[in-house]
Structure formats: C-alpha cells, structure tokens
C-alpha cells in the first residue's frame, strides 16, 4: 500500500529496545509495589496509556501522513500495519472480526514490552501490557471513535497467545465547543 511507505523513516528516532523494556518493567513493578492490587494497577496502566494515546495520535498522523480511513476495517489495518510497526516495531495480525464488523482482535506474536518478563505467582490478574489498551483508546478517541480495548489472552499469564480485543462503541460526533459563558 503506497500510504504505508510514506512514513518518513528519517524522523523516527531509535532507542535501545532493552532500555525501553526495562523502563516499562520498572514502571509496572513500582506500580505494583505502590498499589498492591492487580486491578488497580491495570486501571492505572490503562489511564497512563490513554494519556499517551491522545498525544501519540498527533505524532502518528504527522509522520505517517495517512488520511481518513474509509471504514473500521481500514482503521484496523492501519493500526496494525502502520501504528504498531512505527512505535513498537511489531505487526500484530488482525483477526476474529465480529459479524457486525465492529469488533476485531489483534494477535501478537511478540511484544517488546514483555521481553524477559515473568509475572510472579500471586498476580494472575495483572494485565502487564495494559498500557497498550489505553493508548489505543486515547488515540482513537482523538479521531472520533470511542472504543473499548481489553486483553483476552496473554502469553505472560500462561495462555497460548496474546490477543487484544478492540470494540467500536460509537462514532463521536463533533461536539459544539464549550460556550464562552
């Protein structure tokens, strides 16, 4: 697809992936120490991801130069082939479309966030990569889509694959700007 190759690779700065992985790992470990509750940590990771996503989308649109997507299916392809490739260097597979075309799954063969990680026993509910869910939610909200993202399966928890489910809840209409009063 011509659009994908328009990414100006010279603008993409690289850092050592181990540094990135270790930084994220430290972050999650610290959150666990602070909050002590897996569900709370999951929530915080998602919130942090949301804050990243609403900003990341601008960077993404500027670097990729991709215009509006015709439909949700195209959105899914762009997310996996351009978005994830640009920021995490992986291309998850888009699959398991629902009948109404409003839900799909992203299957990850590998995830740079989770290199070397083993979740200690007693933290079975921890969604280690939950920041990704937040990033997707935030980014898509900025392009007028409200989605819900959650991890269905995770290799770190002993499942056979990592599957992220994305569900389009509604298309946001442009809201009138807040009145001056």
């Amino acid at each position, binding site marked *: 697809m011509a659009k994908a190759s328009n990414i100006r690779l010279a603008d993409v700065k690289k850092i050592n992936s181990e540094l990135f992985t270790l930084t994220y790992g430290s972050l999650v470990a610290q959150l666990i120490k602070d909050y002590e509750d897996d569900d709370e940590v999951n929530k915080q990771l998602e919130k942090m991801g949301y804050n990243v996503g609403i900003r990341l989308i601008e960077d993404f649109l500027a670097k990729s130069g991709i215009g509006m997507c015709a439909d949700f299916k195209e959105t899914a392809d762009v997310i996996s082939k351009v978005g994830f490739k640009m920021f995490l260097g992986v291309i998850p597979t888009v699959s398991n479309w629902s009948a109404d075309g409003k839900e799909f799954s992203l299957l990850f063969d590998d995830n740079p966030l989770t290199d070397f990680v083993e979740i*200690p026993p007693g933290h079975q509910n921890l969604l280690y990569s939950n920041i990704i869910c937040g990033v997707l939610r935030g980014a898509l909200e900025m392009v007028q889509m409200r989605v819900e993202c959650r991890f269905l399966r995770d290799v770190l928890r002993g499942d056979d694959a990592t599957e992220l489910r994305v569900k389009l809840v509604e298309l946001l209409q442009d809201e009138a700007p807040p009145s001056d009063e």
Partner: protein
Amino acid sequence: MPAFDSMFVCVAVVGKNNDPLFLKGFTDEAELKFHYIVHTSLDVVEDKVANSGKGNPEMYLGHLYSIEDYKVYGYITNSKNKFIVVMKDRDGVPKDNEIKSFFRRLHVVFANMFCNPFYTPGQPITSESFGRTVATLASSL
C-alpha cells in the same frame, strides 16, 4: 529420560555476597551435599580472584578443586555473581572449551532472568523457566 546421564551433577549460582541464589542437582544425591561442595568451592574462587590480581581477569576460573569423585568448575562475572558447576569424574573428561561455552550460555540465561522486572537482585531465584532452561542446557552437554 535422557539416554545417558549428563556429566553435570549440579549447577549453582552464588551472589556477590556469597549467598546461594540457585542450586540444582541432577542426580539423586541429597541437595545438602551439593550445598556443601559449592560452599567449599567459594574459598577457592576467592583465592583465584585474589591471585589474578591486576591485568585482565578472565571470567572463566577453570577447575577449582576435586572432591571424592567430583570435579568442581567455576566462573565469575564482573558483577561478582558466581556460577559453580559440579561434574562427575569420568573417563571422558570434558574439554575446557565445552565447559567455557556452557558457562557463557548460562551467563546469557542468567542475564535474561535478571532483566525480569519482578526479580529482585539478591533474592533466591525462584523462576521456574530459569530452572528449566538450566536443566536443558546441562543435559545438552
């Protein structure tokens, strides 16, 4: 079941304060005996390290000492983590190169385990996958 017993009878990881982090025996011997053998080898390790003095010290320490029918080999990292390996003394004496390469691979596996954000340095290694990888490495010799 491996077709032949691996030469390795025990693999141990000792931290920089000489605290045991990991010990795995591959025969039916009581673990306590291996703990004793590894503990004794630590003195030899300190000797060797002190003797190598200035200049480029090698990480591979070679044959440390022999006890009963076991031979003990050592390897120390720059972060003072030590790997000790106990082998059964047999006719087919393993070449130094093979042991060196085993230690190098063990070092890589150890570094990967160390990068786990949930592993606290200095704590005993409880990771099952580390244990399994070490067992596979050991039986491959």
